[in-house]
């Protein structure tokens, strides 16, 4: 094991990683911007280094400063957390070139998986199913493909994004007209009217599989996390197991992912994201080559400390067990953000005036916040993550509601009340929800 490791992040995840390091008997060196001077992670660490002004591009995203902080303090490795430099292959290379072990996959795999098109091609070759669709098509091929795939389908601009040149087609009769319009729109927007076609998965659920991989080809799958409760593609609530997966689909997904890990020689922790269709079909979307915000959900159902495992794997240790990790019970994570649900979940920085976390069995709160803490306008608005465990889903929901009710937090608007409404809703309790949950559900916390 290492003797000293740089934690190249801030906030709750820096606190999380520092704790794991100390549990392994490793010294932790924190980095901080001038906006974060004196915050919890800088105090928990054995040493801390100021790396720049508040702007993330000049501090937490500044590769030279972060690497220099590791070099000048005699660190052997760097844990990147999530966000900031965690998926930046240039940072991974800079670490390697300066004799710092990067806790994560190597730069090459990270670069390939960062390119969404390349990642899909490579993982389709490795046996993961993709959303059915076509390459660039003409209108006749589109008609034939749609008939084969089944409606509804999406027409999308090859050159574009942002919804320009995109059309939802629900019936065969509408295809020709939609093709013409989407093509014209794409031509106007991108100077290229080329279109491709994709099956629309609706209602879709977002389900992801957590893996740990060692250098000897050992792969451990830690099951799935259901992350369909999202607003603007930001996850709000995650749970494991997913109420939408049956045992055979779950096993099939985990073994497909394990084979894919072997095929691309993946190392360390990673998450394979899928869309899950109502009929149980699943389609690979992307591989997140890093630790994820919602990793504690998997930790609570498997009893495996993913961050400690990451550090052991980076130090060259083998996994103690491979295959499918045993799990027990149910876990739900609620993200508490300093955001105003009544104003479109707009980030609301400010000072935490009062903070009393919920306590009790099965309750975990990962946070960097204390009374007097500032939720800075410079960084994300995450206050903390409440993660709750119990024997089954219903009792976990009750426990989460109790814990959220017990939480005292004043000074900034938060997503707490919105989360409580979601957890208490019939749609959530039934387990029958999709990524359009927040679009379809009127929450009192959000107003009209």
């Amino acid at each position, binding site marked *: 094991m290492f003797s000293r490791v740089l934690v190249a992040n801030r906030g709750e995840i820096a606190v999380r990683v520092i704790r794991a390091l100390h549990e392994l008997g490793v010294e932790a060196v924190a980095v901080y911007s001038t906006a974060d*001077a004196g915050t919890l992670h800088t105090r928990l660490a054995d040493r801390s280094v100021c790396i*720049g002004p508040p702007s993330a591009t000049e501090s937490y995203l500044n590769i*030279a400063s*972060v690497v*220099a*902080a590791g070099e*000048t303090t005699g660190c052997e490795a760097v844990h990147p957390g999530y966000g900031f430099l965690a998926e930046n292959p240039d940072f991974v290379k*800079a670490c390697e070139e*300066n004799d710092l072990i990067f806790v994560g996959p190597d730069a090459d795999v990270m670069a390939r998986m960062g390119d969404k098109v390349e990642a899909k091609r490579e993982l389709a070759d490795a046996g993961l199913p993709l959303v059915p669709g076509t390459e660039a098509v003409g209108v006749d091929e589109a008609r034939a493909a749609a008939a084969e795939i089944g409606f509804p389908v999406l027409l999308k601009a090859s050159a574009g994004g942002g919804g320009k040149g995109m059309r939802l087609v629900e019936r065969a009769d509408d295809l020709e007209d939609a093709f013409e319009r989407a093509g014209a729109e794409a031509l106007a927007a991108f100077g290229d009217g080329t279109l491709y076609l994709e099956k629309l998965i609706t209602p879709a659920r977002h389900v992801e599989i957590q893996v740990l991989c060692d250098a000897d080809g050992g792969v451990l799958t830690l099951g799935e996390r259901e992350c369909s409760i999202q607003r603007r593609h930001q996850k709000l609530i995650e749970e494991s197991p997913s109420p939408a997966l049956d045992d055979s689909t779950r096993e099939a997904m985990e073994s497909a992912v394990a084979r894919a890990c072997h095929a691309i020689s993946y190392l360390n922790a990673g998450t394979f994201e899928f869309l899950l269709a109502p009929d149980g079909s699943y389609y690979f979307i992307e591989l997140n080559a890093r630790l994820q915000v919602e990793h504690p959900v998997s930790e609570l159902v498997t009893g495996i400390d993913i961050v400690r495992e990451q550090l052991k794997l980076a130090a060259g240790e083998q996994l103690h067990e491979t295959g499918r990790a045993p799990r027990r019970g149910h876990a739900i994570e609620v993200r508490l953000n300093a955001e105003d649900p009544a104003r479109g979940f707009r980030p609301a920085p400010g000072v935490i005036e009062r903070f009393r976390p919920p306590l009790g069995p099965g309750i975990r709160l990962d946070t960097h916040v204390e009374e007097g803490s*500032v939720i800075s306008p410079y960084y994300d608005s995450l206050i903390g993550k409440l993660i709750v465990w119990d024997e089954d889903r219903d009792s976990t929901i009750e426990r989460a509601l109790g814990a959220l009710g017990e939480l005292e937090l004043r000074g900034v608007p938060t997503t707490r009340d919105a989360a409580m409404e979601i957890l208490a809703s019939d749609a959530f309790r039934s387990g029958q929800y999709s990524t359009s949950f927040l679009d379809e559900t009127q929450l009192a916390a959000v107003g009209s």
Partner: protein
Amino acid sequence: MRVSVRRTEEREPAAAPTESPLAALEDAELAPVAPNGIVRVEAPMVGTFYRAPQPGAPPFVEEGQPVGAGQTLCILEAMKLMNEVKADVEGIVRGIHVENAAPVEFGQLLFELEPLTARPLDAL
């Protein structure tokens, strides 16, 4: 490097005033001339501090030595790159606050300069 007015540490009362972190970062945006006119040269980055261009060579500057605006005061090494830190003002080196080859953090005091002009140019 930006220059503006701030009390020096020596003049600060023993009990530092409690500032909110937001106030502290606004303060950090400002850099550093004391009422006595001493200009603080602070590290613009993390790195290893070197007083000379290479081992065995004479230092860029010594205490008491006059320096011109734009003159190199030291090197900060990060990721094997040598970054020169230069004087913003014409002045006399009144303090060297870091040992050669020591690590420095962003914002750490490296040198104090006594400007030769009554007012530093940037403060006009």
